[in-house]
Every structure is written in structure tokens, then in C-alpha cells.
């Protein structure tokens, strides 16, 4: 071993001293168990970089992505949000960032108490009774919801209402395969039967439309199935809490409120459910308790611990509710702080602002001669745009003008989506970007 790397304290002298104390001649002796035939293979890795070299390399790489300043109207599961500035500051405090799962509650109250705050916030937003401290992302959380519905209803099929995010549907399918669950994509609740453990519905749906959950809940309950609502927690700033509309399980994606889209991850799966399902919930749960012994100066004080662990893999092993262990705690912290910083008024105002700005942009686009914004009902922040050419052509024309247009959904079956791009405008889309878009669309329209 050469002289130490900055990440490794022990020096050659340290090592010599330690080896001597251990009583072996060299480091190799400690690896003696490793099969000689396979020891120290040729491994082709680029040479080590010093910190300045690493910074330079990755600054160049970051610059190979589209510039962050480029107008971008993609949504479809990842939304640019105005995240309060205090979030990044607090989340980067190393006491939070460099801890692990709070196995030792007495020195992990920061993680635990914030976990309790998170659960509370998720329950308030979703209108549910209980929540865990978060799963990987909305899709895996929804998959876990289907498994949980199957466990509690003892049924082996899950129904997904058509307009669910394809990524979410994909993950449900992956998990279902392992669990031996059949997945039916249904166009309407009429297709539900008593084979279905649950009906999964996305709010707003994949094309941005706000869904009336109540009839769906009723339809699901009528066949003895649970309603799983996959809800955008930001939209819940104005939309009815799914719990109040009859949902039994609510999942959601918390990433965007906690920080930047980061090419999709780290993400954060929200998972909340009704009290009856408490002991079936996957993942970790924080509970409130007291000190066992009163301190000298008074009553036992309040603290937080991981609880109901008999559900979990490290105790229950193959009979656990899920295999999840490491989840997304730090993102959950960011989510909690962001929601609490906005507060009840701020979250509502922010969601309303998003709504107004998106509708205003849609109105301006639909007013352009060659464009059409087909509506499918009330919607939140995403809308379809049909232009004077095919969707891929429109997308390419915008790209040429250094604008990232909406997602191409022209291959979907919904009639409104035919030939359309799915645009997203949020409270955080800069005005200048919208102006640039309108101008570019007008230009493109003129040129045809």
C-alpha cells in the first residue's frame, strides 16, 4: 500500500504498528482465506484523481447536460418546484446527512423526531391515519400498496386505472410478478371484480386531469377491494385529501418538494394508510414514547423510537411485510421541512399559483392560430398541446429553438392525446421561459 489516501488516515507507520500488534507479518496474511487462484485480478479502472481534477472533470460533465437555464416544459412525474431555501441548508447538516437508520434512539432523536413530523405531515396531506417514514419512490410505494392490499384482502389481482404513470405501472408489474399477483389495467371501475385486491388510481392522472376519487372508492369498496390513490402531495395543497374521498392507501412522490429533480432520484415514496392496516404497512415507522427512568430533575421526557418492528425484515425475515431496509430518510426530511416552511396557507397558495400559471399558459397557447389544447376535465398543471405538425416534429422544432417541449404522448390511446405533447407549467416555471415558448410556438405555427 502506498502512502495514505486523504480518505484513509492510517499511515505506513500506523500500519506497521497495527500489524505487529495483531501479530501478522503483512496485510496479505489477513486476506489468507481468499482463494489464491482468484486473488488480485487485473481490474481496469481509470487512475485516481485528486480533488481539483475530480471537480474539473465533473463540472465538464455537468455542462454536457442541457443547461439548467434552458426552458423546459416536461412534467409527467417530475416537477420543478419552488423549494424553500432553508431546506438545502438544513438537510446538509452533517448530523442528519451522515447518520444511518436510528437504531440507537438516544443519539438519533434528530432523525426520529423528524420522522415523526414526516409521518404527521403525510397523514395530514393524505387524510390517512398512519404513514411510514417513506419508501423508495412513488412507484415502488404503489407496488408495495398492491402487495399490502393483496395481503389484507387475500386476493391475487390488482387493478390499475388506465391513466397511471407508465413508470408506476411498470414497477407494480415487476413487484407483482414476484408476488404472483395478476395486474389488470382497467379503463373503468366497472371492470372490477371480487378477484381484485385493490383499484389503483392516480391523482391527477397521467395526462394531468383531476380525478373524482369518491365514486372510484365506492366502486372498489363495492367489490371488497381497497382504493389505492397515487396522489401528488403538492396538488394536495388544494385537492381533497384522498382519505376524505374514501381511499384506503395513499402513495405519492415527495422528491420535487424536497429538492431538484436530479434526473429522477433520489426520490421519495410516500405511503399512508388507514388504521386497520397498521400492522401490514411496509417500511419503518416512528413512534412516540417516554424515558424509562425519570431524570433527576423531573418527569420522564418524551422521545421517539422505531416501532412496530415486528413487521420488518430484520426481525420477521421471510414473513416481513416488505424487504425494505434503507429507504430515503434524508429526502423525507427535506420534504417535511419544505411542507412545514410553506405551511397551510403557503402550500395552498403555491398550489393555486401553479394552477393559475399553468392555465394561463395553456390559454395563451390555445389562442395561437395553429394550436389546440384539448381538455379532458379539470386539470392541475399539465395539459395537452396539439400543433400544426406531428408531436415528434413539434418537439424537434422546439428543440431546435433551445426549448424542451412537453412529453410526447402521441402514441397513447386516449383520443385527446393523439398527436399531442404533454406540457407542464408550475409555480416555478420562469415567466421568461413561458414567453419564449409562446413565441417559439407562434413562429413554428407561422412557418408551416
Amino acid at each position, binding site marked *: 500500500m502506498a502512502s495514505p489516501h486523504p480518505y484513509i488516515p492510517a499511515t505506513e507507520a500506523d500500519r506497521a504498528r497495527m500489524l505487529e500488534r495483531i501479530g501478522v507479518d503483512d496485510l496479505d496474511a489477513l486476506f489468507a482465506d481468499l482463494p489464491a487462484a482468484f486473488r488480485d485480478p487485473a481490474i481496469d479502472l*481509470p487512475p485516481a484523481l485528486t480533488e481539483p481534477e475530480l471537480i474539473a472533470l465533473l463540472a465538464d460533465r455537468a455542462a454536457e447536460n442541457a443547461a439548467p437555464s434552458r426552458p423546459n416544459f416536461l412534467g409527467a412525474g417530475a416537477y420543478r418546484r419552488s423549494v424553500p431555501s432553508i431546506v438545502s441548508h438544513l438537510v446538509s447538516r452533517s448530523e442528519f446527512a451522515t447518520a444511518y437508520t436510528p437504531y440507537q434512539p438516544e443519539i438519533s432523536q434528530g432523525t426520529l*423526531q423528524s420522522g415523526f413530523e414526516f409521518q404527521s405531515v403525510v397523514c*395530514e396531506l393524505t387524510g390517512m391515519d398512519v404513514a411510514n417514514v417513506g419508501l423508495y419512490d412513488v412507484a415502488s410505494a404503489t407496488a408495495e400498496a398492491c402487495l399490502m392490499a393483496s395481503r389484507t384482502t387475500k386476493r391475487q389481482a390488482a387493478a390499475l386505472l388506465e391513466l397511471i404513470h407508465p413508470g408506476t405501472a411498470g414497477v407494480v408489474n415487476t413487484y407483482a410478478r414476484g408476488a404472483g399477483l395478476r395486474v389488470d389495467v382497467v379503463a373503468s371501475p366497472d371492470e372490477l371484480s371480487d378477484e381484485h385486491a385493490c383499484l389503483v388510481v392516480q391523482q391527477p392522472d397521467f395526462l394531468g386531469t383531476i380525478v373524482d376519487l369518491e365514486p372510484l372508492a365506492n366502486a372498489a369498496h363495492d367489490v371488497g377491494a381497497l382504493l389505492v390513490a397515487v396522489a401528488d402531495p403538492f396538488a394536495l395543497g*388544494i385537492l381533497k385529501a384522498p382519505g376524505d374521498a374514501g381511499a384506503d392507501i395513499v402513495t405519492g412522490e415527495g422528491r420535487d418538494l424536497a429538492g431538484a429533480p436530479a434526473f429522477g432520484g433520489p426520490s421519495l415514496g410516500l405511503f399512508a394508510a388507514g388504521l386497520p392496516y397498521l400492522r401490514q404497512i411496509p417500511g419503518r415507522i416512528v*413512534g412516540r414514547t*417516554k424515558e424509562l427512568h425519570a431524570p433527576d430533575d423531573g418527569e420522564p421526557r418524551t422521545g421517539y423510537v422505531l416501532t412496530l418492528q415486528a413487521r*420488518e425484515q430484520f426481525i420477521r425475515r421471510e414473513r416481513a411485510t416488505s424487504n425494505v431496509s434503507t429507504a430515503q430518510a434524508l429526502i423525507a426530511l427535506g420534504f417535511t421541512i419544505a411542507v412545514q416552511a410553506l*405551511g397551510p396557507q403557503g402550500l*395552498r397558495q403555491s398550489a393555486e*399559483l401553479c394552477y393559475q400559471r399553468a392555465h394561463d399558459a395553456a390559454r395563451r397557447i390555445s389562442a395561437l392560430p395553429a394550436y389546440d389544447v384539448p381538455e379532458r376535465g379539470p386539470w392541475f398543471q399539465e395539459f395537452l398541446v396539439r400543433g400544426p405538425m406531428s408531436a415528434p416534429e413539434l418537439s424537434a422544432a422546439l428543440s431546435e429553438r433551445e426549448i424542451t417541449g412537453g412529453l410526447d404522448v402521441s402514441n397513447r390511446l386516449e383520443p385527446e392525446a393523439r398527436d399531442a405533447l404533454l406540457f407542464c407549467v408550475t409555480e416555478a416555471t420562469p415567466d421568461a421561459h413561458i414567453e419564449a415558448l409562446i413565441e417559439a410556438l407562434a413562429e413554428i405555427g407561422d412557418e408551416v
Partner: protein
Amino acid sequence: MTAPGPRREDFGARLSIDRSVPGRRAVDVPAWHGSKTSLPDSSLLRDSLRLPEMSQGELVRYYTALSERNYGIDSGTYPLGSCTMKYNPKINDLIASQPGFADAHPQARAEDAQGTLRTLLELRRGLAEVTGLPHVSLAPAAGAQGELAGVLMITAALEERGELATRRRILVPDSAHGTNPATAAMAGYTVTHLPTAENGSLDRATIEQELDETVAAVMVTVPNTLGLWEQGIEEVAGLIHDAGAYLYADGANLNAIMGRVRYGDLGFDVAHLNLHKSFSTPHGGGGPGAGPVCCTEELAPYLPTPVVEECADGIVRLLAPERSIGQLQQFHGNVGVLLRAYAYLRALGLDGLRAVSGQAVLNANYLRTLLHGHYDLPYDRPVLHEVVFSGSRQRRQHDVRTYDIAKRLIDHGFHPPTVYFPLIVPEALMIEPTETEPPEAIEALADALIAIADEAAEDPDTLHGAPWSAPIGRLDETTAARRPVLRWQDVKVSETVSRLSR
């Protein structure tokens, strides 16, 4: 000289909602001056939302105070066995938070995300080199999801072979992490537990006995959770393959062997890694992590979607393998964590990786030597990245449990090691110092554990009551589970109940 301070605040009793004052706020939202669209029908809208109302300064103070009630790697030694709590280089966080990376949209065209994609491609290649398994998907969000991916890939392969209906068992050593059996179960398999032999490795005889045409796979942790090399694993691999089953490596302990031996060379078919452990991305109080899954040529077609590939046109793209088991995440995994892992890999290179595994192993053995004789050592041989002691002697002689020892260690300024795992070691103390602890820290940890062993004999009550110097005393975990209070609402309810019942 000590004199009483004022009574310590019951900090945990005052949550954000208890600090809320109607009308306060921490941020303002811009007003909308454009023309207004009426909101959807009120039946679709919420009436109220209960959230705390605090000013910005109050909220910052609250979470700053919470952080101060937490112990992280930057606070001191954190020798949680199996968790690889090593120093997290700050540069990794800075790199991942560059706007070019952080603002990339997951639905962006590949052409608009080449910086991220090329970095992921190189990480993929690096992991393939390090594991000797040439194909990699970076999608899994953590180790357990990597396991699920790996097992489902085996499922897919068996299906293709037409043997899925018969091969319904997965063999898992009794020393395995709980995620292994839980994963096997989630993937629809029955779990058969394999006993650990006296030398700390798998019992070869049992394996041979269990291996038949009902076995889909054997999941082995290498090195295992005792910190020991799985002796003869390369031969076991042959047996497993002969029996038509697959060999899965739980690579959560890769840090012990990085650069020295590779799963692929040993005959493993598929492995997952824990980048948040071996590759030093911060653990974040329980995530985010990243658990890439790596495999042989044979299993490559089944890898989870997406896999990052350089295409003929020189553009790096995210592709779906032809017979992929499907997606694991709505998008492409915990990319921010993957960027950090890449930065770590590049900061080290091969020599650095070898230095890491070498020092991790040296540190664990140093600790083993220093504590030798003070605690029982059920598997008394040189270890790799971690060492598992047992508090059995203390339990037997002084009625002091490992739980007490762990709590007392807090008073000495250390985060306790993993306890009561692996399950096969009674009163287990599973200690993983990692390579980033200086020898002085390991010596101090040993000294503290020795002092505690002495105290167990002389003054067991001090251990029973520990910790004494933490922000809060030992907590009542039983009541927490028995009468769960899981959110603000419950607090109110349970307080009302207890007030009424007085």
C-alpha cells in the same frame, strides 16, 4: 463542583405543531397577477389543512436543534457492523448538487442528458470491473431492491428454462441479513435456512444435501456477516451450478474485498452492491442509498430497466434489456447517489480501492486483537471488514446484556455497534470500524469497551441505566409498540384520553 442547571427541557414533547402560532409563516408565495381561472368544483377540493405555522427563524432553529440531537459520522466513530459507516467526502455532495446534474429532468432526451448518462455509463463499467460481473443495472434504490432485482432475474431465467414451477426454494444462510429471506419471500420463493459451520462458513454438507431440482438459488453474503470469508465458495458455486441453481452474492460487504477478489471470478451469477456503504455516499439517516445489480452474460437479458449503454451513434442512452424483469423505479434510480459513488470511485482508482479494503480489514483485525479476551469471540480467527463479539459472558456473569453495553458506549462518546445481529451469535456485538477511522479511534473504542467490561463486573447498574449523557435517557420501546402514537393527531388523542382517565 456541579450545581443544578435549570430543568432540562422536554424537547421531544414540543413538536412543530405545538410551536405553531396561527398566522406565522416561513416563506411567502408570489401573488398571481394574471387573469384568474376558477378552481375546479369544490367537491374536488380540500377545506382545511393542518400544518404548523412558524416563522422562518423558528423553523430553522427547530430543525437545527433536532440535528444537534443526532449523531453522524462527522460526530465520531460509528462502528455499526454491516453498515460500513465511513467518512463521506464532502466533494461528492458538492458534485451531485451542481445545477447541471441536479436540474436534469428524468424525461429529458438522452441528447440533453449526456453529462449524467456518460457518468452513469462509466460507473457501470467501473462496477463491472470491480465485481467481475460484466452487466450492471444501476436502477435499484438500495440493497434490498437490488436483491429483489437479482432474484427476479433468476426467476426470469428459470421461466425461460421452463423450471420456474419446480424450483421454488432459495437457500439462505442463517447468518444472512433479514433482507435476504424477506426478498426471497417477496419474489415468491420458500426460504430454506442453511446453518453456519463452526468455522463461520457455510456447512458444506448441508448445502450438498439441500441442493436439488427444487432449488432456484443460493443467496450468500460475501464476506459474510461474521466478517469472515465464505470458505470454499468457489467450489460451492460449482455444486450449485451443477444442481441447476444460481448463486447470488449479497455484496453489501464488498468493501472488505474491493480490488482483491471478484464475485464473477468466483462463480457468482448475480450480485448487488450497497453504494451507500462500500462507496461512501452518506447514509442520510436511513437513505437514500443505491443498490446496483451486477450479473453474468447469461442473466444480462433480464436486468431491470433501465441499463445505461453507449449506442453506435456515440450517444449514451437508457435502454430496456430485451427480456428485462421490468422497472424498479418510476424513473432511473437514485441518480444523485450514483453520481456520488462515481466521484468516490474516481477519487480512489484501483490502488485506492485496494487501500480501502486493506485498511478496513486491518482496522477490524486490530480491534479484534485489542478486545481479545475481554469479550467472547465465537469465531476466533482473523476477520475481514468486521468482527462479531458476544456479550454472553457479561450476560451470564453479571446480568449485563449487550443492549446495556451498547447504551453505555454512548456515554463514552461512541455510536454503538450493531447488536443482536447476526442472529446466530448470542448477545452479538458486530463491530465494523471501516478504513476511515484512525488507529487512535479504534484504540479509544477498544479502551471504552474494555472499561465497560470492567464496569459490568463492578457496577452493573450503571450499565443498566445507561446512557446517562445522551440528549435523552433510555427509551421505553415496549410501550411505544404497545400503545402506538405515530403522529400529532395521536398525541392530542392520547393526551385527551389520559387526561380524561385521570
